[in-house]
């Protein structure tokens, strides 16, 4: 009886810890989101480059970037606690996690003045249909990384300004 109880206890413990053998969270956890590149032309003077972010909006046209981010209707890359996209480069590659769903507007946004709430403008949008000025919407599925989200930013030819 004693040995039987002991055996049951240790078998039970073994079964409990079995799920722990996969080491849990990993640095290569499957990302749901988008990946692609941002190419740049005609960089503006450095004193107008306060910040540069990739912003993905659920709706188009959006309200101000700041409010949309705060209300959860827009996601920025890199995250707000981190430095922005690199500047004065020809191209940047990005990989961005997103919740599954539809997003109507993917845009590179520049903060051109000191007011973090208001001084933003669109400088390049994801657009695969160049015959109109509307951005191209994307749909993200669970566990899928949507590739080839490539954006051209030409600071001399800015896209429509929805905010």
């Amino acid at each position, binding site marked *: 009886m004693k040995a039987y109880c002991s055996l049951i*206890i240790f078998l039970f413990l073994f079964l409990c810890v079995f799920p722990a053998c996969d080491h849990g969270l990993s640095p290569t956890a499957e990302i749901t989101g988008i990946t692609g590149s941002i190419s740049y032309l005609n960089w503006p003077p450095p004193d107008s480059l306060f910040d540069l972010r990739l912003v993905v909006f659920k709706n188009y046209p959006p309200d101000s970037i700041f409010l949309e981010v705060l209300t959860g209707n827009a996601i920025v890359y890199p995250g707000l606690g981190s430095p922005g996209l690199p500047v004065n480069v020809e191209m940047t590659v990005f990989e961005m996690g997103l919740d599954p769903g539809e997003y109507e507007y993917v845009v590179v946004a520049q903060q051109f003045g000191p007011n973090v709430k208001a001084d933003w403008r669109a400088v390049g949008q994801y657009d695969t249909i160049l015959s109109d000025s509307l951005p191209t919407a994307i749909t993200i599925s669970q566990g899928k990384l949507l590739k080839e989200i490539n954006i051209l930013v030409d600071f001399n030819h800015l896209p429509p300004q929805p905010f």
Partner: protein
Amino acid sequence: MMNRFVCFLTISMFLIHPLVAGPGVIKGKILDGKGNPLESANVYLKGTVMGAATNDQGRFEIVNAPSGNFILTISMIGFQLQEIPISVQEKDMDLGSVKLTAIALQSQPIIVTAGRQEQLLQDVPVSIGNVTSEEIEYRNAVSVNDALQYVSGLNLTGSQINIRGSSGYSRGVGSRVLMLLDGIPYMTGDTKETKFESLQINQVDRIEIVKGAGSALYGSSAIGGVINVISKRIEPAPLLNVQLYGGSYADAYYSQWKWTDKTRLLSGVKFAYSNKPGKIGFRIGASHDQNDSYKKNDWMKRYYLSGMLTIEISPFQELRFSTTYMARNGANFLYWKNLLNALVPPDDQLDDKVESQRWHISADYRHVLDHDRFYTAKIIWYRNRFDDNIGEEENLEGNQSVSDYWDGEFQYNFTLERHQLTLGLETNTSQVSSNIFSDKTGQSGALFVQDEFKWREVLAVIPGFRVDYFSLENVGNDFQINPKIGIVYKPWERSAFRGSAGRGFRAPSIAEVFTNTTASGLKVIPNLALKAEHSFSGELGYNHFLGKKIFFDLAVFYNRFWDLIEGTFNKEANIQFQNITNARSIGCEMDFSLSTWDDRIYYNFGYTFVDARKIIYEKGKSDISDYLTFRPRHLFYTQARFSWDDFQIGTDYRFISAWDKIDENLKIINDYDKRVPAHILDLRFIYSFFLAEHSLKTSFQINNLLQYHYVDLVGSIAPTRQFVLTLSGDF
């Protein structure tokens, strides 16, 4: 501050009767059924404040016992409580050897928190958790929160405690669990948070946890439960306790997370010396902990000094003073850079540091008037100071705060036929001087009453209520009435049904009302309209000691919350604490313990299910909505121990399901939503031995043996595998 303390002492001294010297010494030896000495058995002279605990040879001594006829009570978990009538004369009384009868693995521990008086576990109408000093020692807990994380129904988010889904995570501000030190509130004056690390763990006798709203006896903050840290008694014989530990962290399982080639170490030394040569007892202690941490910019150094003085004014009166000073200096890891750099903070946080000091002085006076009446008076001063450099790189000054918390209470207990009554008054003051919380003062006063009415031999009804009045500078006054009722029904020997219902509340902290700061371009602004959050809690439970070796406890519970305070964005996109959430949590809990093979094998598990959801009101109707943030739905903790003579091997396994919902405001953190369920396996080997008649113990512990990685906070990986070697001894 000091003036108030001197005033209290003066009043205390007026209350004190002339010193009554007791003539007798009661001594003896407590043994188990096989004649082995029992260590840490409690021996108590009923109707007095006098008692002792047995040493490692089972011996006890109560000095200065008064003349007369008394009942000597001997209790120890696992053994039948024994009461011996004795007649104390003017000479030493040696009881010789007293054998206790083993009755069950877990006989009923005595609980003092649930009803503000001593009660057996089965006489308490709410669910109780109990962490003994043996368990603290067994698990090599470095601080109080280390010891709490194995209690069923509890889990820690960062260092913030969550009991049965009552609390999420709010960077510690506004805890919904009230922490007590020896029965008196021990919360910071500015943020009203629990700072478990500010107490020296080797001075703790036990920790009691009330798993439900305790506001009807303890007031604000006890909306989700109460944790009472009870200090060790000072025994008559001189005792030097020394503990040394050292260890290291293993590299994370994934090489991508390796950020240094240096071994990350942790170490510490603790000592305490106590003695009670006559009527005066004292204990002094000091300790130091150092931790390099497995994360970059997360190191910590901590120092403690502590003291306790007990004065046995007479066999019926005791005055006790205690103090602890803690200084902590460390880096401040807020969250990771991203999942690929999970053990490294963002570049702009690499130099974040925090210095803090915490200091308390408390006094506690107890007077037993006769077998049926006693009163206590307690006062505490608790200072919390911190100073960080967060935001300095943005040309902002860091955050500083100094808060003083004063609490004083008077409690009178008496028995009237079948009624055991508790009456009390409490008052407290919080004073804050801070560049983020501003310079403010808050005050409160309260009256509480409880009646434990033994209606039948098998049935007790325990009604009670508490009235709280509180005021906050520039905000105004408010008051709360919190009633409760509890029922305990014991139809069979060693079985008890319990039921309880009560109201709870939490007044907003000074930090929640007045915080005014800017960080990362976001502004946090005050909210002078913030009001208290409140709750209703109900529980039904049943527990049973089956045979001599099995104990189980079942409980179902329901909590309803109104006006929960959360930090959120207002229309101007500024962060503000607001009363925005109504919610309910519903769940069940089961505890099971088994001992077999002559107690060589001990097994225990606890499972808790909590479904905590928001409630949304629309068009006059209420709807159950999304999950509350940072509440795991499933907690499963289990442990097994095997003992053979002086060796012991033990293992703990904990499963904590992943949070269903996290705070969306934390999207500023890269990969903020990456989380998995937690599976944590710890393994321990312990060897106890005697060296020149001194009791020594060495243990080797491996925490997170399987190198399982999970987040214990958004963007914060929980500790990697850890090896710790400990040596402790009593001299």
